[in-house]
């Protein structure tokens, strides 16, 4: 399998090179013969400057980025599509329903944003660049205007009212502000893990940044260049209510004329403490914060689709992953006041079980929840918040004016697999959805039709624009694996509808410590580190990835996949690029080089178990004195350190919130760090963040 993956990767890289050297085709024939420009961002960039005349104008200016952007060019409505499989920006005539051109990108294109002067800014995730493209005529590839360097893995863009272009970087954990004309960097703010979408407040003072993991949103004061975290944790209102009732019990007894003895008082106090723990358990982590949207009417609300997670009590063992007695994942849309940055509490309330008596066990009677939200926009004419959902491959319309939009679902449309982006065409009352896995565009009509006019099937089909096959494709097995990896609601994988990507967003980790049959377990980062680090799991349970997948699906109470499907998932996760590839490629700074010396030194002994030539693992069990209360055993598999710098909290139970805490505390239990100076500890940390 590994050899196959290597060959596949070589084939992929080969085709990237081929695309990069494609040059201008010049003609306007449909793909696969569509014209391809020289791969953008391949050559040293020219200085960026504002365009004198905007050829492309935004159809509905939202100031936020997406993998599909609508522009008016030469009187045509054109969709620019970021095709990460093909490594190209496609130009599609929306009304003519055909692809007009393809602009090759040197790297993996992500979100795009059309600037007021008509430049199309494209994030190139794996090259840490933003490329500026110049639309001219619709049937020719876009010319590369310039490119700028960004922090590692630029993922999303936004336009502030003063013209500043904001760039969020996922692995680089940063939000940078760039001059709207020259794209020169003005400031950069460090953020917590995995930033994703960005929106700017109505008054232009703050930027809101979603995070794929970590139960939070960052609110960045753009004038001061400072970020603060806003916790987005789900709350069960009934837990708090039960606690209040318990607290009031002595008063109720006294009111009823019953004597309350000191022993009763003591027991009530004990019960209240137990209630505290229950309240804590009633607080849910959130993740899958990929998308953000701004409400237009009513204005001043930031809408953040996300998912609440019940990871169980890590101090107890669970039968599977998380608490068996409550739904593990629940869709949500947090609503934040864009002036104060505070969420409306109701939007963070975890929803209760279904109440309607007419629902049977037939899954068709229920709406599958959106457990992998990926893109969002607000349509002001219908007040719809439109959210694209991986796995169920739907676009769901929620009431954007509701205190908790997820509890006010209006309708849904079926779209292609892997809907990564959505763009609004306000004048024509429609939305265009780009689905990467199926490589199709879907057109959704947004007229506010009466509910009675809807079809009997709640999941309606939308209009579709099929794109011609591209020369560069991902392997069918990898494509199948990607579909299965994101298959939410597939009870062969998990009875409760979780997908692989629920705990491994983008093939990474959810930063959550789960209650499992073995004790507390931190989700492991997969991307770029699984192929050469058997055996798998913290307990070294399985020798192959296939075995590990089967065990995982069993713990999730899933029915299990067919052999070819397991192979496909293995093929997909073994081809996932390490998220910090760009960092690893960069020349080592002196500090990182010193950190490497420390890491390899006989005194520190890091490399004895984290063997660099074996992907920083020895594949062995070790007792590093880390057994937690609920752990069955005291020995743990040496995890690979590939990408570990960005994947905290650390250790099997997530006990260390920072790498520095870990390095200082493990002395004598795992290597020796006590003798290291602060400078060397810093250097060691810098090295760990580079590998």
């Amino acid at each position, binding site marked *: 399998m590994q050899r196959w993956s290597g060959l596949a990767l070589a084939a992929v890289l080969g085709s990237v090179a081929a695309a990069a050297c494609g040059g201008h085709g010049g003609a306007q024939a449909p793909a696969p013969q569509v014209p391809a420009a020289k791969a953008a961002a391949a050559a040293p960039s020219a200085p960026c400057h504002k365009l004198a005349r905007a050829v492309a104008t935004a159809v509905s200016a939202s100031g936020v980025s997406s993998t599909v952007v609508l522009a008016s060019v030469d009187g045509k409505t054109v969709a620019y599509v970021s095709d990460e499989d093909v490594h190209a920006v496609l130009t599609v005539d929306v009304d003519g329903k055909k692809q007009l051109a393809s602009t090759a990108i040197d790297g993996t294109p992500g979100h795009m944003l059309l600037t007021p002067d008509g430049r199309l800014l494209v994030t190139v995730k794996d090259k840490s660049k933003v490329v500026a493209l110049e639309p001219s005529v619709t049937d020719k590839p876009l010319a590369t205007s310039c490119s700028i360097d960004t922090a590692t893995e630029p993922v999303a863009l936004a336009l502030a009212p003063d013209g500043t272009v904001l760039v969020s970087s996922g692995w680089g954990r940063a939000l940078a502000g760039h001059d709207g004309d020259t794209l020169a960097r003005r400031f950069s703010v460090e953020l917590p893990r995995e930033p994703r979408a960005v929106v700017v407040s109505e008054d232009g003072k703050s930027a809101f940044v979603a995070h794929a993991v970590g139960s939070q949103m960052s609110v960045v004061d753009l004038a001061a260049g400072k970020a603060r975290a806003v916790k987005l944790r789900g709350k069960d209102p009934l837990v708090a209510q039960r606690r209040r009732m318990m607290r009031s019990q002595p008063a109720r007894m006294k009111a009823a004329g019953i004597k309350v003895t000191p022993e009763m008082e003591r027991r009530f106090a004990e019960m209240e403490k137990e209630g505290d723990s229950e309240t804590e358990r009633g607080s849910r982590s959130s993740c899958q914060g990929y998308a953000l949207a701004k409400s237009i009417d009513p204005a001043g609300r930031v809408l953040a689709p996300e998912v609440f997670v019940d990871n169980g009590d890590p101090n107890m063992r669970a039968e599977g992953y998380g608490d068996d007695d409550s739904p593990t994942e629940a869709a949500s849309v947090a609503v934040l006041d864009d002036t104060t940055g505070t969420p409306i509490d109701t939007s963070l309330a975890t929803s209760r079980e279904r109440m309607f008596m007419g629902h049977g066990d037939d899954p068709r009677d229920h709406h599958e929840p959106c457990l992998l939200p990926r893109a969002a926009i607000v349509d002001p004419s219908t007040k719809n918040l439109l959210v694209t959902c991986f796995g169920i491959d739907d676009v769901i319309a929620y009431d954007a004016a509701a*205190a908790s939009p997820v509890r006010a679902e209006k309708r849904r449309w079926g779209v292609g697999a892997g809907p990564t982006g959505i763009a609004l065409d306000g004048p024509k009352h429609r939305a265009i959805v780009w689905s990467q896995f199926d490589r199709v565009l879907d057109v959704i009509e947004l007229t506010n039709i009466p509910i009675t006019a809807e079809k009997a099937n709640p999941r309606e089909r939308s209009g579709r624009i099929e794109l011609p096959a591209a020369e560069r494709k991902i392997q069918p097995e990898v494509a199948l694996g990607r579909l299965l990896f994101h298959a939410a609601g597939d009870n062969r994988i998990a009875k409760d509808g979780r997908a692989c990507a629920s705990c491994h967003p983008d093939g990474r980790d959810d930063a959550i410590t789960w209650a499992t049959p073995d004790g507390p377990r931190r989700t492991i980062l997969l991307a770029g580190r699984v192929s050469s680090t058997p055996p798998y799991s913290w307990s070294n349970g399985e020798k192959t990835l296939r075995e590990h997948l089967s065990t995982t699906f069993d713990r999730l109470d899933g029915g299990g996949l067919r052999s070819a499907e397991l192979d496909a998932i293995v093929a997909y996760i073994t081809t996932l690029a390490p998220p910090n590839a760009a960092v690893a490629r960069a020349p080592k700074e002196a500090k990182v080089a010193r950190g490497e010396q420390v890491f390899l030194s006989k005194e520190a002994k890091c490399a004895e178990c984290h063997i660099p030539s074996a992907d920083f693992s020895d594949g062995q069990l070790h007792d590093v004195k880390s057994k937690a209360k609920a752990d069955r055993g005291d020995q743990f598999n040496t995890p690979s350190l590939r990408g570990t710098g960005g994947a905290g909290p650390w250790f099997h139970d997530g006990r260390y919130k920072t790498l520095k805490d870990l390095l200082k505390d493990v002395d004598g239990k795992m290597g020796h760090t006590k003798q290291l100076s602060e400078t060397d500890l810093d250097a060691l940390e810098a090295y760990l963040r580079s590998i």
Partner: protein
Amino acid sequence: MKRRTLISLALLGATALLATPSSAETLKFASLPTGQVTQHPVGEGPKTIPATEKVPGFFVAKPPPEQTMNGRMQFSMIFSKEKDAKDFSTGKGGFMGSSEEQADVCFSERATDVDIDEPGGPAEWSPSLEPGVHMSPHFMPMPPRAKGGKPVRMQDIPRKFEVTAVHQERFVDLGSGKAQLEMVDAWVDPTTRGVRQIAKATLGLQRVTDAPGGFAIYAARERTHVQLVVRRVKDPDATSSSGGSGSVAEMRRARMMRMPLMIEASSGTHDASSCGFARVQLHAEQGVGEMAKLETSVVSVVPAEEQPEKKESPLQALLGGGDSMQDLSQPELHVRPMSINMSTSWTSRDKEPVVSITLGWAGRDKKM
């Protein structure tokens, strides 16, 4: 897709005042009528109320002996009509009163889902409205169970009848899209059957939108709340399309329409109204947002002439019952769950609370 006679569409034609049942409405808070609602009394009620004290619309009835399991089960009922109370006491009437229509006068008791148990905390009436109130002896509060101690059996917990506060709501349709809720709260002594008035209030209502299945939605504002009332309305056209009164289809349709309205409050608790209407109240204060959901079934009628001809299965043919298995003279009834979502929220940039009502299908359409 087959054309289907939706009850709501027929309803639309019935009055020009109805708003289109679009899937969402945002209301202008300032334009809503104002009024008052009563609140559950704070503090203790009277220990007893003389039998001579009465309040119009509150009739207390004891059950006939055959309904008390030889006196082991003690309870009383409260009805809004004297006849219903008499009928119940004599074993002629049921718990829901005599009306075949869904009641417009209903009762509820104290809600258990708010901070009522905080000393001095606010008190609200439960959204669970019933045409009759069932009053049982109250359990006395118990000391906490010691760790490892034996659980106390239900039958060992002392109980006693207490004077209880009861809330009554009467929906009055004033026409032209206007209505009002008349509320009366009273202490009721189940032992003496005496009733003493606590408070009265009237809430003016404006019909703001309609929902499929014959639902009208009314709204009002009251202090720091928005009051929303969802009411089933009579639908003569639906009765007609299902074959008219007395037809099997109409009886089935009417039975479905009498199913309780399920309510999910903002706190996450569930209630059900067996009344002809349901009321929810949502806070409308700056920085606060609340939501409530009401779920019900929408019945649609497919007239006999519009039903597709069904193919006879081989088994039906063998049994010779093919023709009898499809009664083409009867209209076909379909049912589909619908949710009515009601929300208030008020953020910094809003000049007034945003009140939003959303309709959505909660599942697929199925043949009844």
